[in-house]
């Protein structure tokens, strides 16, 4: 019988999860080592906790099998000049599941990454950050503003100066 851990969301809802699922969070793993099996998470709402648990459940099954040597070499090689910290998820089926999981609006993604960061679930943090970064890469400034509902608070002169300074980035060559 799998050991159960109880997670309590900010709005008081309780969620019982298997230990290996909860242990996707390094923080929870450390807490459970010394204390109870009831973990209050006052900064995480139920809505977000449900989504995080869903992710952890899916990945707990996969993480019980360690990465093969060839895939960890590939992970090391891919981070040469970029500063991305993500280890590529080697299982294509899991990757596909992840891609579906993050088909959420920006607000939800931010809530999830904040919770995942708090709970120290590295792969989930990386997954969300990568997803949001993809919504920025290759886009023009105005598109980014629309996507994230950001106000352009530059004066026309400041914008002109920025445009000139960064004109090399706006050309498509």
């Amino acid at each position, binding site marked *: 019988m799998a050991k159960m851990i109880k997670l309590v969301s900010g709005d008081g809802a309780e969620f019982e999860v298997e230990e290996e699922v909860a242990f996707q969070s390094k923080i929870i793993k450390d807490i459970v080592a010394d204390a109870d099996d009831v973990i209050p998470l006052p900064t995480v709402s139920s809505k977000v906790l449900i989504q995080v648990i869903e992710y952890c459940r899916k990945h707990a099954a996969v993480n019980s099998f360690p990465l093969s040597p060839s895939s960890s070499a590939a992970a090391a090689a891919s981070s040469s000049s970029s500063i991305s910290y993500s280890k590529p998820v080697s299982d294509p089926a899991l990757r596909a599941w992840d891609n579906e999981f993050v088909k959420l609006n920006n607000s939800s993604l931010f809530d999830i990454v904040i919770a995942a960061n708090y709970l120290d679930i590295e792969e989930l943090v990386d997954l969300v950050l990568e997803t949001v970064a993809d919504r920025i*890469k290759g886009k023009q*400034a105005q598109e980014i503003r629309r996507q994230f509902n950001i106000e352009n608070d530059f004066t026309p002169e400041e914008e002109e100066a920025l445009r000139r300074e960064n004109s090399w980035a706006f050309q498509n060559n």
Partner: protein
Amino acid sequence: MAMPQPRRQARSSPPWEVLRLISEFVGDPKSLAVACCVSKSWHAVFTSDHLWTPLCRSLFPSSTHNATAAAVSSRHLFQLLHTAASRRRRTRSQLLLHLPRLIFFLDVFQRGAPVLSLARAGSELVSHRGVFRFEVPMNGEEPAALDSGDDVRVAWTVVTAEWREAFGLMEFEGQARAVGNREMWFSEKLPYPSAFCCSEAEAGFEAQIFIELADEVHGGGRTVEKVSFGLMNTKTWRYVKEEDGLLYLQYFLMDTK
């Protein structure tokens, strides 16, 4: 790592802490540079040295061997080195200054008093056959009278429409030259910096103003009917092309060097 409850600015703009994390995943320099232009808070996040230093180091490792390079931000350093190669390929400056962005002012004084004052926005001017020469009919709006005999003082200035920069095209004092019995002509040599590049192989520029006067005399002077001003190439004695005139003004009015 525990994080404080984030302050949300608007519906879906990323909280600052999240934006910092996201910035590390963007990676490519062009996207980073565009992100700097989104808003002030994004500018603060995306100009951070920790994003640009690895890019500089991997694409221009030599820059780490100069101690003074550390005085500029990594972002600036990257932009400088990245665009360095494109300067060689550039044979001609790109025209960024267009006529509607200029305002021309002309003041003519005679015997210490202003006799002709006009201001025209570039958007009101039509170039004469594609060259940098513009005719301004007076239409009786500002009754100005000039005595072709006496000394005049002429000041012709161009200002950018945002009131940022100004360039004096002419500062003339003395006798006007007469052309026939209807026109007065003023000219002044303009500086021609060797760094300036335009399509005319060799050139010297001159500012020219023509004032066309009416035949009738009104109490001490003749009414101005038309004013033309332009830039002339002193090697070919032709007016410069409108685009070349604008490039010339751009050189002095804008920081595109």
